[in-house]
């Protein structure tokens, strides 16, 4: 039994789960700041990204060292590769939360459209759930949970489409134009967070099955892999 190696692997995985929980916190913060137009909170979300980046770098730097010294193979190799990719996806999600916070700041003085705001809140809740499912599927080595992310993603995509329909109705209203344009980006950003959660699920499936496959094919969305 390679005890030192196993300890290092466990530490990397624990750091990744910690990073995941920070991403959940920052997403919650970004969505609360959006709803409350809370400028103090937006700044906190932006500053908090440094903490996530620190963990991201710690994992990113730990992996080459582990590969070089321990040359993992088989499940260990797939685990290290999955951690490498999931780390990147989590960091990207955190960056998207910063984007939401910055967009919120730009239009903080505009009274939001309640319907659109509600849709965004729904999307934020779903994205949060997806991140949680993705992290748990990884922790529990649960293929079915990883694959269920595709269905959850469909719900975000549906909200995103509903959002766009409403935008078309109100974009002509003067005074709302800038807010609406910014919020289109917020909607798109939350939708991307969902996509990254699906990508995390794909890494979990790779770890468990040794086969990499995309759960959905962007160019042939009707065909699920």
């Amino acid at each position, binding site marked *: *039994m*390679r005890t030192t*190696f196993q300890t290092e692997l466990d530490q990397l995985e624990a750091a990744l789960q910690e990073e995941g929980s920070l991403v959940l916190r920052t997403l919650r913060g970004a969505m609360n700041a959006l709803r409350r137009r809370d400028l103090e909170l937006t700044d906190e979300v932006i500053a908090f990204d440094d903490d996530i980046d620190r963990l991201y770098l710690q994992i990113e730097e730990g992996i080459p060292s582990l590969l070089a010294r321990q*040359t*993992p*193979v*088989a*499940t*260990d*190799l*797939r685990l290290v590769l999955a951690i490498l990719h999931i780390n990147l996806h989590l960091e990207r999600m955190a960056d998207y939360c910063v984007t939401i916070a910055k967009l919120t700041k730009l239009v903080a003085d505009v009274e939001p459209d309640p319907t659109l705001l509600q849709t965004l809140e729904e999307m934020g809740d779903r994205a949060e759930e997806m991140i949680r499912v993705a992290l748990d599927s990884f922790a529990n080595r649960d293929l079915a949970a990883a694959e269920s992310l595709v269905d959850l993603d469909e719900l975000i995509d549906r909200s995103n489409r509903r959002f766009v329909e409403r935008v078309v109705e109100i974009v002509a209203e003067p005074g709302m134009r800038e807010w609406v344009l910014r919020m289109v980006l917020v909607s798109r950003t939350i939708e991307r967070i969902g996509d990254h959660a699906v990508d995390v699920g794909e890494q979990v499936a790779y770890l468990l099955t*040794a*086969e990499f496959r995309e759960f959905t094919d962007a160019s042939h969305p009707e065909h699920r892999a």
Partner: protein
Amino acid sequence: MRPVTMAPMRPVDVAAREEAQPELGEAVFEIQGLTASYGANVAIRDVGLEIYRNVITAVIGPSGCGKSTFIRCLNRMNDEVAGFRHEGRILYHGIDLYGDGVDPVEVRRRIGMVFQKPNPFPKTIYDNVAWAPRVLGLKKELDERVEKALHGAALWDEVKDRLKRSALSLSGGQQQRLCIARAIAIEPEVLLLDEPASALDPIATSSIEELMQELKRDYTLVIVTHNMQQAARVADRTAFFSLEVDDGGRAGVLVEYDETPKIFTAPSDKRTEDYVTGRFG
């Protein structure tokens, strides 16, 4: 130079890609139900696999799993060992190696072997390589044969000016390449390498590993190694042997045999996984 056959071009079928296996050439060895024993001790039990032409096949496994016994069966190197017996068949191009009328000397001429410790004769570099051809009466154009073998073993440039010096003046890595030159001087078809680099430093090891890639164009190579990373680096196919304990005692068995990348990324058998990841025992 052997002609290279290209697979016919066909459209890429994405769905079928994961099923596609690299094409394997002709089987040089077909090993069927091989059990080998020394007296009452069974070293390997019921081993069956095929070894393919111009491919490097690695045999890995823990100490005592019978991997050396296995490759020594492939050129009847065990014949002289007291108490050695075998059951099952080893077909070499369809001919039973242990069949009646098969001359073990002829077997070893076609299936050469290189051992763990370089074992040059205490003679000149030239005489080491020329020894087997002389014994076999291949005396015509001996100089050319020696030069060709030394080229083949990537040693020529280092020794061409001192062919008459003692082989024992060479470094360990050079001595091992000399042993490879000695083995290929009689143009065998198969080279069996039993831990060929385990007594060498990393630089000499990497030159042996590079040489193996050159050699596989002309020869079929089977390497026994306890160094898993070496198997992962050099072999096209890898056989994992393990030690099985049951009522009948302990014996080596073949657990898994597949493409090397498969063995080291997604082995099918839990025992292989445990061994390659270091969770064995």
